[in-house]
């Protein structure tokens, strides 16, 4: 299982999140959306773990499972060495101080009828931390920390730009001093010049507070910039995991290579012929057997992957670089 050397903050083993599809008069289960289909990973203290993949790959669903916004169908999640997978909401509550989520769309994810001060303080209120006075003070401190004026506390989300609302979301998530932030596409909806401001803020906060991040995004360049390790996800499964630099310099899986190649490079002197992969991004409803990517590109060796154990293998002992061992996509079958 992919892991790093120090004691992990979060350990996920063979996690599955299948949503049943019901049909017919009797609402029988006729299929399943296998949004997350056997994912294992660990995140260490102070580490940024980047999760990259295209739409429908299950990355957002995975993020929600980890903060227990969803109840996984199978597998285990251990946080600070405690199994939180099947925990009821009441027992889970104290853990919610330790991990928080920042959502993608700052326009949608903040309650428009709450003032900024109320929004930032809400997690503290839920966790019954501090008094009204101490919370107000903390809100002011957090707003300053994310680069907003204290006076912002009296205003409402609609009065702020996308980048500013994202900062509010981050301030809110930090109010309970978490160890782990799950960030689901935190900068995708922002203009480039604002994106870099928010990324810098996140890096600063990580240094100052010793935070771990699970950074979920589709933009490999952004993910690589902020991450220590990266996992590439395709149709509910991880196909490759490793140190960020290594994944970029030395991708082993055909899908990782395709992703890297598809990213337009902002340098006209590096124009190259594009050889985009064919076909559409697949749907997680009743996915194909075996290696889904091999199936997409109709690789002649796809058939070999059907029925095989496709759990990630390490490219070399101790390399920390793991890849799905299918003959159609890698050399590690």
């Amino acid at each position: 299982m992919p892991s790093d050397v120090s004691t992990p903050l979060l350990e996920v083993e063979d996690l599955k999140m299948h949503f049943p599809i019901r049909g017919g008069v009797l609402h029988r289960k006729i299929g399943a959306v296998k949004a997350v289909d056997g994912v294992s990973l660990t995140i260490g203290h102070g580490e940024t773990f980047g999760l990259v993949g295209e739409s429908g790959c299950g990355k957002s669903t995975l993020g929600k499972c980890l903060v227990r916004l969803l109840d996984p169908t199978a597998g285990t999640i251990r946080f600070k060495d405690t199994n939180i997978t099947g925990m009821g909401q009441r027992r889970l509550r104290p853990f919610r101080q330790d991990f928080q989520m920042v959502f993608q769309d700052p326009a949608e994810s903040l309650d428009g009828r709450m003032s900024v001060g109320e929004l930032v303080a809400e997690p503290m209120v839920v966790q019954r931390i501090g008094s009204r006075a101490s919370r107000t003070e903390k809100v002011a401190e957090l707003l300053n920390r994310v680069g907003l004026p204290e006076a912002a506390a009296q205003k409402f989300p609609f009065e702020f730009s996308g980048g500013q609302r994202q900062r509010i979301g981050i301030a809110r998530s930090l109010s309970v001093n978490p160890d782990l932030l799950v960030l689901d596409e935190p900068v995708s909806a922002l203009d480039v010049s604002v994106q870099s401001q928010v990324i810098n803020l996140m890096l600063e906060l990580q240094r100052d507070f010793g935070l771990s991040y699970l950074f979920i995004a589709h933009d490999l360049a952004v993910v690589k910039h902020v991450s220590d390790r990266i996992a590439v996800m395709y149709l509910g499964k991880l196909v490759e995991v490793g140190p960020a630099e290594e994944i970029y310099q030395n991708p082993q899986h055909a899908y990782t290579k395709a992703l890297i190649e598809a990213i337009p490079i902002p340098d006209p002197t590096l124009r190259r012929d594009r050889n985009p992969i064919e076909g559409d991004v697949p749907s997680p409803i009743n996915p194909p057997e075996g290696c889904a990517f091999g199936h997409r590109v109709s690789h002649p060796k796809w058939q070999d992957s059907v029925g095989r154990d496709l759990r990630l293998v390490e490219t070399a002992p101790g390399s920390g670089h793991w890849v799905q061992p299918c003959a159609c996509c890698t050399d590690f079958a």
Partner: protein
Amino acid sequence: MPDPLLQIRNLATGFHTERGLVRAVDGVSFSIDKGQTVGLVGESGCGKSVTSMSIIDLLPKPAGEVLEGSIQFRGRELCGADEETLRSVRGNEIGVIFQEPMAALNPVQRIGKQIVEAIQLHDPVPTNEALRRAVDLLEQVGIPAPEQRVTEYPHQLSGGMRQRVMIAIALCCKPDLLIADEPTTALDVTVQAQILNLIEKMQSDSGMAVLLITHDLGVIAEQCDEVVVMYAGRVVERAPVHELFANPRHAYTKGLLGSIPRLDNERKSELPTIAGQVASIMDFVPGCRFCQRMGRDGSTTQTRPEFSEVEPDHWLEMCTECIS
């Protein structure tokens, strides 16, 4: 030197709002030559989409209005042209594709019918002939099993497929210019690569020009011959693509290029940023709006800078504080 295919001079477009007239495009000039790909790049609110919609007057009515300027297409003036002229130009000579194909396609009409409609609008051939052409077009844009697809509805297709259909509709009358407004922004990166390839292929097959509107500088670098950088309703810099990336002269262009995380950056390093944010359109100063963003409030914000050619084909908004 042949005349440009499209020549825009001092274009200004505004919207009538409760708070008065808002100039979303405030004096924009650039041109597109036959077969050329020009990229129009800028962040939200810079006016790039409004500029492109002004060309063929697809502005929301009655609020939107072209206020000033000249839009010459193949020597004909489109600004103030009557609806009949514009209608014949739209689709026939200038094709358009948008960011959200679902917004542009009729959800309750089969794909085939929509393409046939577009064809027959400009070329009144019998329906079965138009349908044959539609199947042909779908094949050209890389849709597998096109005879089956023509009977389907938009929701039955994926995002990438729908974009291909939109391209097919836009190109059905072989236009000389394709306006592509954020054509791949809503698509996954692997599908984006397919669509950009397709646009390039259609271009080399037909010799058409493309006006590509996007905020993605990577796409600009890969697809475009020339780049027009817009900020707060104006053009701040305009140059051939290699020149712009190698030698950006305006502070905004430099800031934009600098703030993109690249795959070869030092990991977790602080990214150069542009401080502040663009002002609200209601608060724009008459002078340099980038100075306004930077918090400078001297004379540069009062007088509009000249837009001049500083080197062959390299145009710059000449604000003394912002250029180097």
